[in-house]
């Protein structure tokens, strides 16, 4: 999850946020980190690029990306060999 946090901070250009400051279960969208639908699309590409996972429907985004932990679990469940 530490690597994932670093990737998220970089991909989303989260200035002034250190990866280690993001809680494993901290809500990422709306309150919490305050991410929005554009960030969700960025994370979808991140997953494809780094983990080979394709998400066809962007509406699933906010659910899967609720927290770093939920993303990590999703990756474990769906990761294909790169």
């Amino acid at each position: 999850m530490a690597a994932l946090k670093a990737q998220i901070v970089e991909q989303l250009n989260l200035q002034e946020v250190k990866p280690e400051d993001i809680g494993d279960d901290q809500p990422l969208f709306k309150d919490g980190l305050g991410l929005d639908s554009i960030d969700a699309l960025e994370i979808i590409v991140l997953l494809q690029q780094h983990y080979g996972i394709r998400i066809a429907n962007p509406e699933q985004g906010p659910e899967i990306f609720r927290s770093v932990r939920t993303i990590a679990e999703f990756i474990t469940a769906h990761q294909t060999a790169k």
Partner: protein
Amino acid sequence: MHSDVWIAGGGVICGIGNNLSECLMAFERMEPGMAHMEYLHSVHRHTFPVVEVKASNATLAGWTGMSEKISRTALLSSVAVQEAWKSTGLGDISQYRVGFVSANTVGGMDKTEDFFADYLQDPSKGHLSQVVHHECGAITELVADAMGIRHHISTISTACSSSANALMYGSRLIRNNMVDVVIAGGTDALTRFTLNGFNTLMILDPAACRPFDDTRAGLNLGEGAGYVVLISDALAAELPASHQPWCRLSGYANANDAYHQTASSPDGTGNFLAMQGALEMSGIRPEDIDYINLHGTGTQNNDSAEGSAIARLFAPHYPPVSSTKSFTGHTLGASGGIEAVFSAWAVKEGVIYPNANFSKQMKDVPFSPVTKFSAGNQLQHVMSNSFGFGGNCSSLVFSKNEQS
């Protein structure tokens, strides 16, 4: 200072027709223009249907007398502007103080993206002729210069509401007596830049789009150009019986959603304010609108927001509505202009356009679009909506006859 602004004519080119008459035939025959990419080269060629103008740059150049090496955006603009001017019967353009207000979002990007491929390899490479008209304003001037228009020229770019805003600015120029005539509208050509940009937003439908349908899954990109010729009261009074104005541009409004960079607020605040403002300016009530040409892109977000806003404003008197983007695709910067031509013509000839690919009413919207073409309807007032990224919402009202 208050005076009416009239539509003396219009011209359009898009993926369902190279002029207004061809477009009307396509609507009547229920022939939307979605197809595989033919002119644009992209890796997504077989993934997304698009609505390209069915003519190469060489052909467009031949029709207009412009060079075939210039941007397609300018070529399309030229075709529509020439048709628009001709349709007015106003004759020699140099007799009038003419303004040209053209909108676009991509400028000469179709050429720039070719240039950039060479330039990225080596900064001294790439033909400068491919970027000399990169700017949005440069496209406008290519056409203005060819038409001999010098008096007042400008370009607007507010994403998908661009050319609707061009009509508003043009109308103001006339009301302030800065010009007698304004050719107002917009143009946009399909480019890899836009295609890929929209793809990153995951709002492109890999099938033909279904605006205002519950199963809709996104938009199809189109291209084209559309312009109306706006004239003052004084000039309208001088027109011969054979070339009477089509209608009045009786109202318009521009509001900002101020919700998100690209998404519309769920209840369509900006949309609502724009439509309400346009009605107010026209001095009419919602129930006076006889037809709405929707922005209707076919995305989940737009159609819900637009639908809610219409429901809130028009309930319980919902007028017939349809999205002509179900035929033309989303022509971006040109859409306001193209749809202004369709809407103004609707007032003139009583046309209600069909909405293609509709079968299931949206759960959250209490009305459905019209699915058949009809003419000869009594349309006193027609509304045209254009809503874009950056929260830019614009609405136009076209009306028959004198203001009472």
